[in-house]
């Protein structure tokens, strides 16, 4: 097993990447904050004021049975190469014993493979160690130089930096040790004390408790150095530790994931020889995600630090945190996407596991060049279609499993680019259920063509034809002389208006627009091009213009089962004012955007856009009062993307299944949901 893995890790692009970056290149942009987070959380038990949940640390620690190896590496750095070998040989055993995720011991071995070749290059020893705990994506950025250069994009980074220098002061060994120990503590913190107890128990001496754990890492190293034959014992200890961790942490959210992940990962171990290691790592992390998705589960809460840390470790897209978060929205992902594009572009060749067309879709999401539920969903499905076309099952793998995990990796990439919309979630569910339901006796090409026709069918039936049916229904509600109001830009509403105009109905359209996207302008342009009479105004003037209006047509991003309409921000305002003027509000929405979730406000579930566009008023430079103020600590800019319209403001929802009151949304689930491929 070891002999099989060693060469593979050597060819691991990630590891090579590490070596490249440690040679003094400036760290990539995304390394700015992400390692800072982990570093801070790692150091916090080292006596820092910032208190991250220690449970989280212990969990990660427990899940990494090979945590003991870094000390060994340190030893090697100090000149004893044979120790490294011992460590390398011992780690797989420990890892194997606890059935840890493979990627971890894989990297461990990479360490082993590295050290003999360059035993004295501390930085190179360091970097694999960091790659071990930060996941594959961050392997390139953890050279000590990178840590030092990070001037801290957030408080935590700053605190970490300071504390690391503290450590430097307090520990009088060679200058790099604190860094190494700091790095290793990320995963080792909890495991080590006990190991120390066995191996070098008397090691914690004069230093305070916080740094004690860090020091213990070193002491362990010394203990190891002293007795090489104890390697085996240490492995046992680690095994015990990990088993214990698995038991004790079973209830915690982070660890359950790990535990769940372990089983499927292990099953897969046999078939991986040919695929690229990077993609393999990605894919085999995903089945646990998949499993989670089967159970309806609330979306990720971003104030849950454990999970955020984990998500970050996985992330491809660098996720820089917004400087001034809005307290109410801590649970939502708050990332700035703007500066990431060049980075992600440069990253293209390292993301071998993501199909180019999926990658393209992701970039489009990131830049915002494709917006709107339908467009995004269509693009995603077409990207998946391309990926499936180019897909070939690796030998010794089943198509169903491997393709599902591939789709999962695509989806997680897309989520990093932009949170999924409900429509996309439904489409993904559809696709996955189709993959799962594939007949096992089908050949690969048959299966692929089946899937592709399924995707085409979905796009055609659920989006294209559904829109036509909706238009057909909605047009019956437009009378001559009507004044129709709409907000933002919904493709369905545009089709309704244009077709009604083509049918010769006499009506006028009021287009309400709202910052920051000003999507109404797009709609206005299209309508005016088609010769419709339009009135254009902004959302504040809604109470003024509502006097003239006879119907309100709105699109929706999702319709939830309590009748709440989840839509572009501002739609709720429009519906509210219309309601107060006793004007009917018609929501036009395809049934594939229905979701069985419920929502009662716009805060629990939402998406945050780029806050900087709030301060920047387009085309009107004289109004940009906040241009250089966004860094102020007291000032937060909040760019909500969606809001939830209560069902009592909605008169009618027009779907392809007919026109229903908002109270009948659950009926659509009951009647159509099961058979209509939406939910199996």
């Amino acid at each position, binding site marked *: 097993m070891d002999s099989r893995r060693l060469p593979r890790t050597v060819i691991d692009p990630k590891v090579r990447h590490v070596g490249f970056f440690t040679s003094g290149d400036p760290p990539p942009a995304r390394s700015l904050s992400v390692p800072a987070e982990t570093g801070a959380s790692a150091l916090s038990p080292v006596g820092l004021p910032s208190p991250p949940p220690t449970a989280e640390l212990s969990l990660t620690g427990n899940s990494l049975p090979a945590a003991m190896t870094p000390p060994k590496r340190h030893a090697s750095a100090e000149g004893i190469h044979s120790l490294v070998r011992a460590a390398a040989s011992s780690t797989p055993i420990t890892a194997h014993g606890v059935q840890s995720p493979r990627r971890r011991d894989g990297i461990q071995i990479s360490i082993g493979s590295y050290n003999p070749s360059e035993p004295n290059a501390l930085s190179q020893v360091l970097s694999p160690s960091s790659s071990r705990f930060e996941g594959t994506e961050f392997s390139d950025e953890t050279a000590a130089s990178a840590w030092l250069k990070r001037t801290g994009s957030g408080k935590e980074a700053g605190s970490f930096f300071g504390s690391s220098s503290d450590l430097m002061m307090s520990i009088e060994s060679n200058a790099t040790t604190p860094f190494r120990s700091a790095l290793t503590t990320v995963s080792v913190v909890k495991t080590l004390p006990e190991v120390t107890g066995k191996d070098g128990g008397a090691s914690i001496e004069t230093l305070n408790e916080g740094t004690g754990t860090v020091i213990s890492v070193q002491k362990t190293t010394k203990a190891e150095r002293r007795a090489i034959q104890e390697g085996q014992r240490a492995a046992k200890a680690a095994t015990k530790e990990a088993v214990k961790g698995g038991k004790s942490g079973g209830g915690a959210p982070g660890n359950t994931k790990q535990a769940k992940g372990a089983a499927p990962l292990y099953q897969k171990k046999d078939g991986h020889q040919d695929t690229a290691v990077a993609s393999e790592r990605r894919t085999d992390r995903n089945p646990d995600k998949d499993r989670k998705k089967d159970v309806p589960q609330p979306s990720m809460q971003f104030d849950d630090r454990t999970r955020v840390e984990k998500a970050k470790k996985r992330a491809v897209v660098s996720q820089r945190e917004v400087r001034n978060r809005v307290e109410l929205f801590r649970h939502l992902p708050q990332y700035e996407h703007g500066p990431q594009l060049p980075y992600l572009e440069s990253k293209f060749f390292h993301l071998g596991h993501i199909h180019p067309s999926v990658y393209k879709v992701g970039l489009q999401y990131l830049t915002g060049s494709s917006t709107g539920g339908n467009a995004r969903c269509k693009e995603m499905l077409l990207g998946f279609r391309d990926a499936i076309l180019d897909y070939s099952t690796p030998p010794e793998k089943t198509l169903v499993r491997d393709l599902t995990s591939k789709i999962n990796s695509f989806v997680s990439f897309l989520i990093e680019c932009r949170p999924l919309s409900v429509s996309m979630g439904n489409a993904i569910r559809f696709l996955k259920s189709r993959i799962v339901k594939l007949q096992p006796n089908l050949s690969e090409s048959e299966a692929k063509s089946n899937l592709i026709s399924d995707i085409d069918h979905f796009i055609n039936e659920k989006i294209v034809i559904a829109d036509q049916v909706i238009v057909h229904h909605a047009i019956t509600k437009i009378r001559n002389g009507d004044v129709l109001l709409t907000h933002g830009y919904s493709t369905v509403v545009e089709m309704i208006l244009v077709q009604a105009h083509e049918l010769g109905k006499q009506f006028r359209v009021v287009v309400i627009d709202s910052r920051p996207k000003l999507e109404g302008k797009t709609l206005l342009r299209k309508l005016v091009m088609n010769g419709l009479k339009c009135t254009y105004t902004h959302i504040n003037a809604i109470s003024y213009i509502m006097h003239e209006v006879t119907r309100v047509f709105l699109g929706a991003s999702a319709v939830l089962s309590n009748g709440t309409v989840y839509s572009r921000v501002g739609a709720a305002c429009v519906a509210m004012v219309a309601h107060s003027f006793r004007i009917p509000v018609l929501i036009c929405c395809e049934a594939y955007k229905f979701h069985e979730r419920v929502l009662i*406000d716009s805060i629990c579930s939402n998406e945050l856009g780029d806050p900087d566009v709030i301060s920047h008023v387009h085309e009107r430079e004289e109004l940009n009062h906040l241009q250089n103020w966004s860094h102020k600590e*007291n000032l937060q800019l909040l760019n909500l993307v969606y809001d939830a319209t209560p069902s009592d403001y909605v008169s009618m929802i027009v779907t392809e299944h007919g026109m229903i009151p908002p109270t009948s949304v659950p009926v659509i689930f009951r009647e159509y949901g099961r058979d209509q491929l939406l939910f199996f």
Partner: protein
Amino acid sequence: MPDIQAHVNDFVLKLKRRKIEGSQATARQTAELLRAVVSHQRLPYTNQALALLDAVRDVGEQLIAANPVELAVGNIVRRVLHIIREEDLTSVASAVDGLGLSTNSDDDDNFEHDDHPILSAAAVAATARSTLRAPSLQTLLEGLPESASAPRPSSSGGDSEGKSKSAERKKLKHDVIEAINELIQDIETCHEQISEQAVGLIHQNEVILTLGRSKTVKEFLFAANEKKRSFRVFIAEGAPRYQGHVLAKELVAKGLQTTVITDSAVFAMISRVNMVIVGAHAIMANGGVIAPVGINMVALAAQRHAVPFVVVAGTHKLCPLYPHNPEVLLNDLQCPSDLLDFGEFSDCMDFSTSGGSPLLHVVNPAFDFIPSKLVSLFVTDTGGHSPSYMYRLIADYYSTDDFVVERRIKS
């Protein structure tokens, strides 16, 4: 007189061109102009008050016509008219008092003597009202409300004319100018008086939402902040002028926790807001509010979530008119270029020119009307009032005769 007319024309032009920003500035400048008018007005020997009233009304009519939407102008004109009437009443009262003492011995003046107590009582009541003290029980008992009201000044002016000395003639003008000065001072200090009440209305950790920028709101929040109340403010930016950004900047500079949101996110955010505080453009007699555009939306959202909706405004914004269709009649439509870049849509607009009637119509109103049922509280410089009390407050500041300035002139 000609120099005054020049000033008036100048001001009228400014109003017409909407050069004066904010109703407070407008109110102050109007009051200053009217003070000049009063001081330059040559008073005839007889009917002084009437002459003053006519002069002020004359100028006032021009000013109101210059910008009928800026209700503060009309309010100040009416306030000044009211001041003249009241000063006239008090001067008559004092004159009559003096007269009464001298004529007490004369028996032939019995009729007039009977009249005096009533007059003086009315005058006392009027002064009591003007200083915002509650009228004492005695004056309530003695004073007949009819005598205090409208037709009196002219007649009493004529009445007193025969008897008042030349010193008292000068005194009326002087008193009126003094009173106008007080009015100007009131307008200038209304923010302080309003913001004094901030601490009583804002509690610790309050979440406040406002839209756009109002100087009164700003001062109100500052005052609460200075009293070490910590609270956070959500500011809707207030398209199309985006003055919310300016307010955010000012609040941040003072160290307040400020969050800027888009106008469209008001409904999403209001459920987490404890109080909405907005400024007003004018308060109508029925308790309705004319406010910068977008605030009606906020008020509706606040009502939906039962969030108190507080309007802060100086008394110079109190308008004695009952609005009819205020959304249209008391609104200002502003330049469409605020919303839409013409260059961007010139290609679309070309279609319209070829087709005859324009296809594209851009609406950019300046104000919203908020019906009184959506308002929880008015905070004025005289204290907090409920919308239903506004009519009474108006009766304190205006005489019913002046409610319609123009018709008076025509008749």
